[in-house]
């Protein structure tokens, strides 16, 4: 507890220590996002699995026509976006748990975000290319 006699500099020292060790206050949002993506992946996974089994070994034209249907295009885009976000959050937790050297950790976290964005976007482009028939 701060007393009336404590000097401003001492208070500043405590504030700086707290600042350095406190959470960024974004934990609840990340936690909810992990759960929300997991929940959304339940029906999307069922759709993907049934599709994959029925599509296994399908010839090119059949696979294209399947993905070009509006329902499947929408479902695949949803799956890709939610899946890459879920994976990004998961890999971030692994990095945060095992990489303790601050610069390396920061680089790994950034790399995770960039890789998820790039690969996810590549998937979206591929799906749209097929859906729009080019």
């Amino acid at each position, binding site marked *: 507890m701060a007393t009336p006699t404590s000097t401003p500099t001492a208070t500043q020292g405590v504030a700086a220590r707290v600042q350095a060790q406190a959470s960024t206050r974004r934990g609840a949002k990340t936690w909810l996002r992990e759960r929300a993506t997991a929940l959304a992946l339940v029906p999307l*996974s069922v759709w993907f699995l049934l599709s994959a*089994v029925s599509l*296994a070994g399908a010839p*090119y034209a059949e*696979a*294209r026509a399947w993905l070009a249907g509006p329902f499947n295009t929408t479902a695949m885009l949803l799956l890709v976006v939610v*899946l890459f976000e879920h994976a990004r959050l998961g890999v971030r937790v692994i990095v945060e748990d095992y990489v*303790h050297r601050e610069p390396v950790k920061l680089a790994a976290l950034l790399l995770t975000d960039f890789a998820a964005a790039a*690969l996810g976007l590549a998937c979206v482009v591929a799906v749209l290319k097929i859906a729009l028939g080019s």
Partner: protein
Amino acid sequence: MAGSVRPLSPHLGVYRWYFTMGLSIAHRVSGAGLVVALVGLAWWLAALAGGPARYAQAQAVLGGWLGGLVLLGFTLLFFYHALNGVRHLVWDTGRNLDKHAAHRSGVLVVAGAVLLTLLTWLALLLVG
């Protein structure tokens, strides 16, 4: 720096191994493995968008014995991670948190993952 002297989790070295702990690690390991599957999905979508020749190449890889083995592994990782994920979602509602319930749901998840993997590949063999 301040961060390096603070206590860090998880402390893997100080515990005796037990069932639910193994399942917890397996959730993380299966999730990491499925990241590789995610790269595979991107590769397959790119092949399908890339034309008949690239699609045929991709299908040949997936249809080979090595591709099949990897897909079988991904199927098991997927079912484990998905079912254990649902187990986590149930825990988040405050249910099944005691030791015995956690053990029971863990057994259920492992059995379910193996069973669903077998069923999926049985269906694949019947369709294909």
